[in-house]
């Protein structure tokens, strides 16, 4: 047997979670991933998923007689452009698992179409963005936390499972410039209704009643100001524990709150974040404190950045008037679908069929649906046209923003299979064709 030649690529970014680890080493042989070093298990899995498998689309597909059948790029782009150009109110959604250059093309297409443009922040950290607009956000980059923070609070986030290397790279075990002793130099607090694996390695675990985070934050803020509360217990947490936490917060030299979807997607949504940010702001009267969302998709922060520098708004944008308007709840994808207010959809690198409420998904499938995706997913199965994409960050390079809004360069480690094209090129083709059909 011939020995395969293995090529190793260093300093590769992991295109999976918002931690956006940038120290991976990937071995490639025969255009296949054979080994991934330094990545966590979920990141590694994503690299292996790029190897040939039956769930991968390698040519464009068009639905004929209820079945997706192979088609040429020309036919698929022509048909897709037809659908989009004729729609009165198309929805363009997704964009968080692709690179910024493609996201920018998505904005361009949405503007030409006069459609609704949204990204997955709509269903994860949209509330964080809303709160930030209401009350600001004292933040910093991850390096700052690594080197300085001696109090780390995970509120409604469970990095052990959702951002596995966050702990070893930035927040818990890693040694920092002023935290020479790593874990021993940090006090870890977890606030969560569930006794998660992250809670189990914390110094202080605060078990809050489900969906009562707002009340707890409210009490903490009042206690911090020196107000004696009438209550003995708030949200299932005793007043002694609240006072202990407030004291810990006030006396640390640098504190940070990493909050996750446990806070953004529980009952009070953006108001939880509003209160948490106000608390952070007020803590800065006593010491140095920051707050930062644990972003899920590796480039959802980038989607917010790109949308914002192009339109002024981070998500839930409507172009029907020819200029950008913003209003989550009115132009957010879940709502426009729920109210059946769009007449065609283009989904880019996302799987709303798995994440959206059933009623919204039903309406998504009711109208023509175009999906740009490397893999088969519950969304692509119901698509009228599937445009096969190269996996950004593995088969295509580009820019991505880490959860702390630091831009990093994604690498290409192997070629895409079959006729796959990058998201950016596919969107460019669509833009060109739509313009042609509109006679521009």
């Amino acid at each position, binding site marked *: 047997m011939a020995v395969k030649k293995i090529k190793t690529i260093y300093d590769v970014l992991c295109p999976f979670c918002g931690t956006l680890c940038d120290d991976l080493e990937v071995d490639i042989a025969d255009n296949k991933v054979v080994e991934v070093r330094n990545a966590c298990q979920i990141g590694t899995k994503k690299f292996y998923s790029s190897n040939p498998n039956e769930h991968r689309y390698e040519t464009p597909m068009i639905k004929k007689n209820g079945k997706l059948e192979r088609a040429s790029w020309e036919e698929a782009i022509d048909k897709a452009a037809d659908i989009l150009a004729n729609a*009165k109110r198309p929805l363009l959604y997704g964009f968080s698992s692709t690179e910024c250059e493609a996201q920018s093309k998505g904005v361009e297409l949405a503007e030409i179409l006069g459609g609704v443009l949204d990204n997955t922040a709509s269903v994860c950290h949209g509330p964080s963005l809303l709160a930030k607009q*209401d009350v600001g956000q004292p933040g910093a980059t991850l390096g700052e936390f690594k080197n300085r923070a001696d109090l780390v609070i995970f509120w409604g986030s469970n990095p052990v499972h959702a951002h596995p290397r966050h702990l070893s790279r930035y927040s818990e075990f890693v040694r920092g410039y002023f935290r020479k002793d790593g874990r021993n130099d940090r006090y870890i607090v977890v606030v969560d209704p569930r006794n998660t694996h992250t809670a189990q390695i914390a110094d202080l675990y605060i078990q809050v009643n489900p969906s009562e985070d*707002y009340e707890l934050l409210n009490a903490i803020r009042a206690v911090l*100001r*020196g107000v004696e509360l009438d209550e003995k217990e708030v949200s299932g947490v005793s007043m002694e524990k609240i006072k202990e936490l407030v004291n810990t917060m006030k006396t640390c030299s640098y504190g940070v709150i990493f909050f996750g979807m446990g806070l953004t997607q529980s009952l009070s949504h953006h*108001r939880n974040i509003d209160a948490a940010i106000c608390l952070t702001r007020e803590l800065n009267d006593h010491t140095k404190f920051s707050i930062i969302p644990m972003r899920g998709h590796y480039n959802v922060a980038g989607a917010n950045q790109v949308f914002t520098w192009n339109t002024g708004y981070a998500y839930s944008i409507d172009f029907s008037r020819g200029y950008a308007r913003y209003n989550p709840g009115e132009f957010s994808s879940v709502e426009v679908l729920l109210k059946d*207010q769009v007449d065609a959809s283009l989904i880019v690198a996302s799987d709303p069929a798995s994440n959206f409420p059933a009623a919204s998904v039903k309406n998504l499938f009711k109208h023509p649906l175009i999906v740009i995706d490397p893999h088969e997913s519950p969304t692509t199965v119901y698509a009228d046209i599937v445009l096969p994409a190269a996996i950004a960050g593995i088969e295509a390079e580009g820019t991505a923003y880490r959860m702390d809004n630091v831009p990093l360069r994604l690498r290409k480690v192997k070629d895409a299979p079959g006729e796959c094209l990058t998201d950016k090129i596919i969107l460019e083709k669509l833009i060109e064709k739509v313009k042609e059909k509109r006679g521009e």
Partner: protein
Amino acid sequence: MSEIKLKLKKETEIPLEAESITPDNFAGKSINEIKKLVVYYGREELTIGDFFNVTGKSEEKDDLIISINGNLSNVKRIGENMSGGEIIINGDVGMHVGNQMSGGKIQVNGNADDWAGAMLKGGELEITGDAGNYVGSAYRGFWKGMTNGVIKVKGKIGVEAMLWASGSVPAKRLPTLICGSAGSFLGIHNHGGTIIVEGDVDRCAGADQIKGIIVIKGKAPKILPSFKKIGEVKEIELFNGEKITGKFIEYAGDHSVKKNHSTVSKKTGELNKSVNGRLYIAA
């Protein structure tokens, strides 16, 4: 007194944006001119005449009544920015009805969708049915929401009504909301608004309130821990001098807000409750 009648020809599939329907825009125009006013349908720019039958006669703005019939639940922005006259809507109406209106009256004989009377500056909005979320609220990112005027909703309203309301007694700006019952976070970030709820409210009423009065004549599930009980009262005096009688428990708050008037004395450690927002709940 003159009247223009609009009747929706048929229900639309996607939302119609019709902020051109205001007495300000209709005043002194002929039926043909009114029919030519622009409305937005998806990415298309069409006219009122494409969607509505228009009849009647229009004269001075302040004496003009526009009455609209049909299911308008997919028609947005009726009465936006209006400054006088009257609109009567017979049926349900879509989002943003009467947003930023500064004068005149809108009567909705039906239900209203979200953002009804958002950032109201004056005038009166009355809804006989229910209303959606963000009634009289500030739009995203604004720190000044409803600054004056009155909103009355007979039925229930959704969450976060009167967000960032901004009133001032010396300036005679008294934003007021009266409703049947309300969802959570009623009057959040309230800066001097008056809210009267005839029935019950959901969680977190008055969160982050600095000034303002919230009166709940029904039940509230839980009061935020940062509110301090003052005692029982038999009469409540509102900012406009009107009085509400009945047995209420008076709370001061929200004491979690830093820059409010609920200072804690450095000397005695005592809380100054006298100049703070108020929440009254029926005893």
